[in-house]
């Protein structure tokens, strides 16, 4: 299976058609947007092969293989930074975008119309001045439930497709939340939350959180960033930990028991900064990528156990994704 990988960078979206070995971007005259546009988010969907949504500083864009370019998607977010895009796993028409300031906009008609959600997240933050959305997740079990992480305001949940929201921060050591992962079994759910002050775990669907003490020799720092469940129901979870944002060092951790124990994955060489994004796709759970914020790309062909650094670096990468190539 040939794949296409995508990297959202501070100079547009880059494409790789050879499993990360080489990268190129669309040309400004025909690509749909300025190839130095700042892009924070790329999103693919298993039911929309060849399609990519990109969140930029110029609005929302949609790439399709048939058009071979990014087409502008009208939305209320043109003057905002679109930092996160999520699509409902069972309904590709349901799109959620998170921005800076920390607002959430949702469309249930594939981007034709948009609703600004009333999350009531903080409007101001001493440390970063303006809060922002760091993660959006559709609940794997409940079609109507969305989860959002805010920097710096905690975890928010809506059980009615974004109409009303509740905030879930009990037990968090820090409200600088970055990402969530859900591990469901027949009779239990574990939610893991990465924060700037370590990993947290909830066994009551986010009602309360408990700090997860990971030994220093495994996680040398507290800055947990990206976290994903490998899409094969194996209970394997991958998470990144860096020295700080943006950082100068980092590790990738892997857990085979839903986050109870961790060890460091094997990297071909040390990373240059915090690992900002990890990419998986259900079509091949063994095929993974991660990107550091300062432009390095690593690939794993064995489900995250070992990683090879790609030669090409891309300056500043905010998100990475991949999907099977379509013609």
């Amino acid at each position, binding site marked *: 299976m040939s794949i296409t990988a995508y990297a959202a960078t501070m100079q547009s979206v880059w494409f790789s058609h050879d499993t990360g070995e080489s990268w190129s971007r669309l040309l400004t*005259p*025909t690509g749909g947007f300025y190839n130095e546009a700042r892009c924070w988010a790329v999103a693919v969907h298993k039911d929309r092969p060849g399609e990519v949504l990109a969140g930029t500083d110029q609005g929302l864009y949609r790439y399709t293989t048939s058009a071979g370019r990014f087409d502008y998607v009208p939305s*209320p977010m043109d*003057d*905002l930074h679109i930092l996160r895009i999520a699509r409902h796993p069972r309904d590709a028409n349901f799109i959620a975008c998170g921005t*800076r*300031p920390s*607002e959430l906009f949702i469309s249930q008609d594939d981007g034709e119309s*948009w*609703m*600004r959600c009333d999350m*009531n997240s*903080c*409007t*101001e*933050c*001493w440390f970063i*001045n*303006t809060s922002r959305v760091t993660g959006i997740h559709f609940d794997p079990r409940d079609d109507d439930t969305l989860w959002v992480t805010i920097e710096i305001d905690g975890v928010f949940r809506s059980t009615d497709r974004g109409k009303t929201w509740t905030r879930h921060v009990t037990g968090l050591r820090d409200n600088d939340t970055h990402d969530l992962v859900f591990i469901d079994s027949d009779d239990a759910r574990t939610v893991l939350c990465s924060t700037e002050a370590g990993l947290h775990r909830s066994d009551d669907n986010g009602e309360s959180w408990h700090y997860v003490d990971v030994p220093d020799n495994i996680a040398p720092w507290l800055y947990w960033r990206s976290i994903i469940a490998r899409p094969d129901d194996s209970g394997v979870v991958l998470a990144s930990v860096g020295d700080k944002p943006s950082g100068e060092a980092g590790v990738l951790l892997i857990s085979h028991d839903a986050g109870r124990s961790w060890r460091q994955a094997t990297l071909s060489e040390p990373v240059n900064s915090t690992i900002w994004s990890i990419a998986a796709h259900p079509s091949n759970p063994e095929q993974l990528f991660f990107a550091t914020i300062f432009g390095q790309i690593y690939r794993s062909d064995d489900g995250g156990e070992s990683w090879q650094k790609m030669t090409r670096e891309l300056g500043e990468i905010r998100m990475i994704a991949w999907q099977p190539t379509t013609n």
Partner: protein
Amino acid sequence: MSHLLLRPHVANANRDITSPDVLIDRVWVDQNGSKTYLPIQRLSQKDGLQMPAGPMTVTAAGLWTAAGGGPVFTIAVGLRPHGAPLQMADFIVSRGAWRWRNVIEHWSSCRLSVVGTQTEQFTLSTEQIPAAIDEPSSTLPRSVALLTELAERSFDGTGTHRIEIRLSDPATGLELTQGVMVHTLGDDDGSDRLAPRYAVGPAVEVEHYI
């Protein structure tokens, strides 16, 4: 679902700056205690406005924004054709701003100037403070801005003018300034300008361009 992303630079007496970007989608106008609304698209943070030729009314306005760290106060220049209602004015909001709690206690000592062809100075009264914001702890709902007129003057708007309002606070030594270039419609209708040029980049013939 229109909005304005307000980008205030909030300064205090120590010259510390914080810059929370705040999304606003409702503007309340307080006129002697009664609340009306201003369409959000009439608020901007541009540096100029185009206006029909003729007498204009300049409004020096105060604007409060709901923000998590406490209401933010700033100034705005409003312009409308003379005789038009305030709701027809376009307001340009200053990027400079203060935290309201740092101003309210010495509001009456602040000095407001409107600078056009001549400078007029105004003193402020606590009666000008809208009831919704008349205490340091007052807050506004999320995504709402409150605007009120602090001073008004008329001028003959022909040609290009610069209008500026300044609000100085002797207690902190801080000053808010907002200038607006006013271009009269028809004063330069653009017909004397050259046709737009097309650059091909590499020195080759371009046979087709979208």
